[in-house]
């Protein structure tokens, strides 16, 4: 027997991979913090206290911030599973938020039982519409979705800017934001006195539903098959890949669209420029860290939520600028990719005949 190597261990126990990636990230971050004259242990302790120190910090900080990442992370994970490289969760999120706000503001008289479902539906449709453009370009013309979904993000961002400065601007006309949405359209808090809202539960439910769909249904099987090989799907599976690719785009867009409106309905209560600090992009890190597994997206999103929530405490209490958190997020992506590559390194030599 050869001595067990890291790559062999990573191959045998896939769950070691995210753990290794996180350890590596922590090590590099600690080294950089030390170089910057900080005490890594103290900084990490502050970060962890800030994220998990009290129930309120955990619920109203970490989990609240994890919610949009959970939803967009799911959107990205599902798409990537079918090898639809949707980089456009950010744009779909904005489209969903705009549509939800528009319905909420334009139908102010409706009761909660009507208004909330109507806004969620509008957000889902808008997200789907935003994803449908790249889907059509890919399936009809063969245009790569990495470019189109990315560019659609800018369209959504500028559309949002235009709308909150113009047609949807608040009645006072002071700030570039919409009016507050009616109370009937609010997502209620989960626990009295906390800010964590129903959207988090919706995210958990969607994660579970998507996991069941991918692993237990024929449709999910087809999605994974297309992700593994379009040719194998068509020749061995005897089904056409194009409808599956369409479905995947739409499903991903729907989930990302919901993420936008859920953030507005649960937290901000109005739409404004810069609603998202880039959740749609962080979502890619979340999905990759979760190895595209819907259930693992939950802890991955919570981890990134904790980084975000703890980052504030880190700045206040340890004097480490919050931008470090962005750096850590980027390091996680690099570490995940490096670890996956390490695991793959010798696996290629496995063919025998």
């Amino acid at each position, binding site marked *: *027997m050869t001595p067990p190597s890291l790559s062999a261990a990573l191959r045998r126990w896939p769950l070691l991979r995210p753990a290794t990636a996180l350890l590596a990230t922590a090590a590099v971050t600690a080294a950089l913090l030390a170089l910057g004259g900080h005490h890594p242990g103290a900084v990490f302790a502050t970060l962890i206290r800030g994220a998990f120190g009290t129930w309120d910090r955990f619920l109203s900080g970490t989990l609240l911030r994890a919610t949009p990442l959970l939803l967009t992370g799911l959107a990205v994970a599902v798409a990537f599973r079918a090898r639809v490289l949707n980089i456009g969760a950010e744009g779909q999120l904005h489209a969903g938020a705009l549509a939800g706000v528009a319905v909420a503001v334009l139908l102010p008289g409706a009761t909660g039982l009507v208004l909330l479902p109507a806004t969620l539906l509008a957000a889902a449709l808008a997200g789907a519409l935003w994803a449908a453009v790249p889907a059509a370009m890919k399936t009809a013309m063969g245009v790569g979705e990495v470019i189109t979904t990315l560019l659609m993000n800018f369209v959504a961002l500028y559309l949002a800017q235009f709308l909150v400065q113009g047609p949807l601007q608040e009645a006072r006309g002071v700030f570039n934001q919409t009016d507050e949405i009616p109370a009937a359209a609010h997502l209620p808090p989960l626990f009295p006195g906390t800010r964590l809202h129903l959207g988090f539960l919706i995210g958990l439910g969607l994660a579970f539903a998507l996991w069941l769909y991918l692993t*237990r249904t024929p449709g999910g*099987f087809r999605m*994974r098959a297309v992700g593994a090989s379009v040719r194998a799907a068509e*020749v061995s599976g005897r089904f056409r890949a194009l409808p599956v690719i369409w479905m995947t785009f739409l499903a991903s867009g729907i989930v990302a669209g919901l993420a936008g409106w859920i953030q507005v309905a649960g937290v901000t209560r109005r739409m404004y420029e810069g609603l998202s600090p880039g959740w749609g992009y962080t979502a890619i890190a979340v999905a990759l860290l979760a190895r595209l597994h819907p259930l693992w997206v939950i802890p991955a999103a919570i981890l990134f939520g904790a980084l975000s929530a703890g980052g504030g405490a880190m700045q206040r209490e340890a004097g480490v600028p919050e931008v470090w958190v962005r750096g850590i997020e980027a390091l996680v992506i690099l570490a995940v990719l490096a670890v996956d590559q390490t695991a793959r390194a010798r696996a290629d030599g496995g*063919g*025998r005949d």
Partner: protein
Amino acid sequence: MPGANDGHPRDSGDRPGGTAPTGQPRDSRNAPLAARLHGVSRSFGRVVALNDVDFELRPGEIHGLLGENGAGKTTLARVMAGLLAPDRGRVEIGGRALEGGGARTARELGVAMVHQHFSLVPRFTGFENVLLFNGGGWTRRGRLRRGFRERVEARAAELGLAVELDLPVEELGMVERQRVEILKALAGPTRVLILDEPTTVLAPQEVSGLFAVLARVARAGTGVVLVAHKLDEVLAAADRMTVLRGGARVLTRPRGDATEAGLVAAMVGRGGVGDGGRVTRKRPDGAPADRAEAGDAVADGGGGDQANPPVAELRRVTAGDPEGERIVDLSLEVRRGEIVGIAGVGGNGQRTLAAVLAGVRKPVRGEVRIPREVGWIPQDRVEEGLVGDFTVAENVAFALHGSADFRNGPWLDWKRVGRTAAEMVAGMEVRGGGAGDRAGRLSGGNQQKVVAGRELLRSRILLVAESPARGLDVRATAQLRGRIARLARDGPGPPGIVLVSTDLDEILELADRILVMVRGRLLPLPPHGRHPDAIGHLMLAATTSSPTPPPTPTP
């Protein structure tokens, strides 16, 4: 580089004293061996692929490497090419140790390998692919070295390789791709040339062409390793042969001392091929011995069989795939219980015909009547037949995911799928993994058994098999062919079978009637034409000379 060096890297003179750095060459002639493996072992996880193997390759010989699927042939080849580091043992190329593996070192020592699944960049032209593998084509400043193109062309001419150098490889047929691959390997100085199952993509006539090329390569002093599983081919081409079984070397013999029976016994190690796999030989007229009447009735193409209406019917169908492979105005009927053999040089429309019969490709013109479910063993098992990252059960689910029997409400019934897969694994004697293991872990031959086993599940009415035994070893080939032959006369309602193959022996052995595919059309055999020469003539005559093939008759 001086032209005299072509095909023969460094002669022994550039080694001080002519002694190998590690140990004396065993060869009595005292010339350094082209390659030598000493006590090489390699495992993958718990699977021992090579166990303490010694192997010697002399300059100028063609050395056949034989063995069943999973015997370790490819692993041995990859170790020699520096693509895999051995766990134990030593590899020497031209007397120099290949320390710690390393494909680059092996290449520098003059080892080139032609893989079973080609390693060409599809969008690059043939020339660009040659250039990619041969650093000698570039100047230090990244310019194309003057005269390189001419040297490559001269090399191709010298080897008798007719290669299209200026078309993207993706537009070439398999045969031409292989030529590019060989030229790529031989454009630089080469001491050792390894070919992994090179004949699997070739028609019989093309095989002899390949062997002529290899003979020329060997004559120039290169040691050639020919990995193969077809005995007759190795016996025809190789000077010496080595048999591997279960990762160990069983024997090495010069051609003069080798018999087919002896080699089979060495490969199989079970005193021959199992009874279960034996195929009923046909009478010379081609009808199967034990169902002569039924066979004759269909063999002459009598369309008026009222009791047995066709299960698949193509009427004047024209179709094609994006790569340009197509069928033209083609008609075909397949009835239950018959095996229709489609012979022909690869790339004449067989792929499209199979895809149309399987319902995957829609015709441009014409009428297609096919059953809802068709078994199709596709030609390209690795890319199209399987997903390596899926488990065997998931790969079997490709055939079952649409069936109500394997559904439980909205859910796919994975338990039933798993049971079916496990039965298939047992029935096909898949080795190296079970229903729950990744299909990519299996050896090529076992992957193929998975594909064949899955498609047999779909073959209640119609089976389209493209070279179903390609890449299988002697025993597995006999078993699979036996299975197909039995399927055709199975029970009250046997399926119709379309056997597409470039292997004439296979067609002659199994088919009730034979059609030859030429440029997208099907030609019938002339009376008493059921003979390899006659079929070969039809295949080639029509491809090379006749500009307008005769119209397709309606069978």
